[in-house]
């Protein structure tokens, strides 16, 4: 589990500060760091296997959430009934 195995190219297999790195990766994924975030991300992903894996997992979860959890069908008459209510109070 240490470093005898370099199957992941040149990335280090242990992250020295998981806590800080993962929080940073999440902020980048959330779009909070802008352009600066993109450079930082590139550096991290090139160098660190745990960061690389964490990033891809987080990204996959966000994608699946977005495609699977946003399609609650709107009840047919809801929009009309809201417009009607607003019309009535006016």
């Amino acid at each position, binding site marked *: 589990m240490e470093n005898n195995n370099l199957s992941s190219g040149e990335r280090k297999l242990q992250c020295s500060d*998981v*806590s800080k790195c*993962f*929080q940073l990766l*999440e*902020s980048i994924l*959330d*779009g*909070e760091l802008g352009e600066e975030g993109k450079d930082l991300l590139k550096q991290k992903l090139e160098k660190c296997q*745990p960061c690389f*894996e*964490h990033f*891809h*997992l*987080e*990204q*996959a*979860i*966000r*994608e*699946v*959430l*977005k495609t*699977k*959890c*946003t*399609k*609650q069908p*709107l*009840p047919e008459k*809801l*929009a009309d*009934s*809201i*417009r009607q*209510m*607003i019309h009535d*109070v*006016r």
Partner: protein
Amino acid sequence: MSEVQRRKYSQEEKTSIFDGEFMPHIDSMYNFAFRLTFDEDDAKDLVQDTYMKAFRFINSFEQGTNAKAWLFRILKNSFINEYRKKSKQPAKVDYQEVETFYNSDDVDYQSTTDLRAESVKDMLGDEISNALNALAVDFRTVIILADLEGFTYEEMAKILDIPIGTVRSRLHRARNLLKDKLKGYAQSMGYNTDEEEE
């Protein structure tokens, strides 16, 4: 009273703001309401109620600002004030329990890293939705706002009336809880999650 609140829109302006800036968000609003209440009728009432309030307080909405965030804030407050108390779920208890647990230490980064991106992508059924629904309401809410609706930390801070730092840490905890649940599904689906203990 701020300047914003004193402004009065004409009847025409109100209609145009309501139709042009408020109504386009109805799908997101309903999705949010449904994921808070888990009930179609309650979700409908909550959305209707929110739009009525939005219209009543339309003079405090500043045109050109983020209408979606403004509406979500009203919906979330209505939910807390009216729906949460009549709902059966013991949200507060759950929440404190997990928050204490996750505050206890540097958050368990390691235990969640053994879930793999591939197994998440292969979840084609309702696993992710069920996992989200199983979270306590405060955790569920931040994930909905960030990942489903794409709000920024700053917008979320305003919607939820909490500091940005709290948004960030609550979101992080929420995601860890979600990953724990997904890991459970992945295991039951027979994916290798590199589990060494448990």
